[in-house]
């Protein structure tokens, strides 16, 4: 066994240990701490698999923003967490057997994947020049599989609408609960004041270089979202009222602009979601800019939850 094999095994063991800790921790708080650490290490495994784009997304959304969502949920639900009756031994044994079976089938499938593996990489590369992009992952997201990505933005809008819809009628149009305590740490206020502007610049830069290097609309948008959230956690700003026009416009800007560009395809380039040849890169970056806006707005709103104050306040 080489040194690097040993390191890979050790990394896998720690990741699995953290996963086990996540599901076995008695209190949700401890479980979420383990989950955030798990997400961090998973991002490093993604780097090992030559997937820096995914690693960034996993670190920002899978670990960071999801962690904040779960931790704030556990705070609000914590006092209510009445312990349920523990599951019976039969249920545990059955679940263990089923899980072992599924894991076994999956492991077998992984070990007997066809060799040589099928790959679309040459096709993706062959048409990369037509998009004017250098990052094949961005090309897949915005050009080759653009319909998927557009609908995925629609899912985000629907999720925000779904979260808002659980609010009682009298709070409709009001603002969600604040993200931090009434008197935040002064150190946190300082951090938010310094970090947020720098982070905003880096987020925009990450979107911009995403055309050619790892990065892109999702990663840049997620970092901008995190910066807005840290400003709200320091109580420098409050979550906006959900009736505000700019907010709703920003939410639908991503899928809206994407859809319009797709509909303009038949006129400009001959088919739906086709971009005019020679002019594809500016169109792609234009669409992506609005996607960044929508992602940066929708992720914090999903974390903030339904409105809990009346619209007048």
């Amino acid at each position: 066994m080489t040194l690097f094999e040993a390191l890979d095994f050790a990394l896998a063991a720690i990741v699995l240990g953290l996963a086990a800790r996540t599901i076995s921790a008695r209190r949700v708080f401890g479980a979420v701490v383990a989950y955030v650490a798990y997400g961090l290490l998973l991002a490093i495994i993604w780097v090992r698999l030559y997937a820096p784009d995914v690693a960034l997304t996993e670190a920002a959304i899978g670990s960071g923003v999801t962690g904040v969502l779960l931790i704030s949920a556990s705070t609000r639900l914590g006092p209510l967490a009445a312990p349920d009756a523990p599951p019976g031994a039969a249920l545990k044994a059955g679940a263990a057997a089923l899980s072992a079976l599924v894991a076994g089938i999956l492991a077998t499938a992984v070990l007997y994947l066809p060799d040589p593996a099928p790959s679309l990489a040459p096709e993706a590369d062959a048409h990369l020049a037509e998009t004017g992009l250098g990052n094949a992952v961005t090309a897949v997201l915005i050009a080759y599989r653009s319909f998927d990505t557009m609908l995925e933005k629609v899912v985000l809008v629907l999720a925000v609408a779904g979260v808002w819809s659980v609010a009682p009628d009298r709070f409709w149009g009001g603002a969600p609960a604040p993200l931090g305590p009434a008197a935040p740490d002064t150190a946190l206020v300082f951090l938010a004041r310094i970090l947020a502007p720098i982070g905003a610049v880096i987020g925009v830069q990450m979107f911009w270089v995403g055309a050619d290097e790892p990065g892109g609309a999702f990663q840049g948008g997620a970092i901008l979202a995190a910066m807005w959230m840290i400003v709200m956690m320091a109580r420098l700003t409050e979550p906006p009222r959900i009736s505000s026009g700019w907010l709703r416009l920003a939410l639908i800007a991503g899928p809206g602009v994407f859809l319009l560009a797709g509909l303009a395809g038949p006129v400009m380039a001959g088919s739906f979601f086709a971009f005019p040849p020679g002019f594809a890169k500016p169109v792609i970056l234009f669409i992506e800019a609005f996607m960044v806006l929508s992602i940066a707005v929708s992720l914090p709103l999903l974390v903030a939850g339904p409105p809990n104050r009346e619209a007048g306040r």
Partner: protein
Amino acid sequence: MNDVLLAAAGITLLTVGAGLARVLSGAREVDGLMAVQLLGTGGIAALLLAASATGVAGVENVALGLALLASFASVAFVNASRTQRGSDRGENR
């Protein structure tokens, strides 16, 4: 030289990872937060070492993203533990 850097990356990651695993098996929640913080910094160091050794494009961008978010989850945790303790005792601080 590159192998030395990669080995350093691996050792750093395993050290902080093992420390975290050890701490989380204990009962002290605050220590878990500290260990996650150390894991974040160690992970960034490991990524930078790996980026320098392998020259794979974009790894240092991942490190930059992690650096921005390093404090993010911990801030939420401390805020949450404050709110939790406050509500346990029916007070705000």
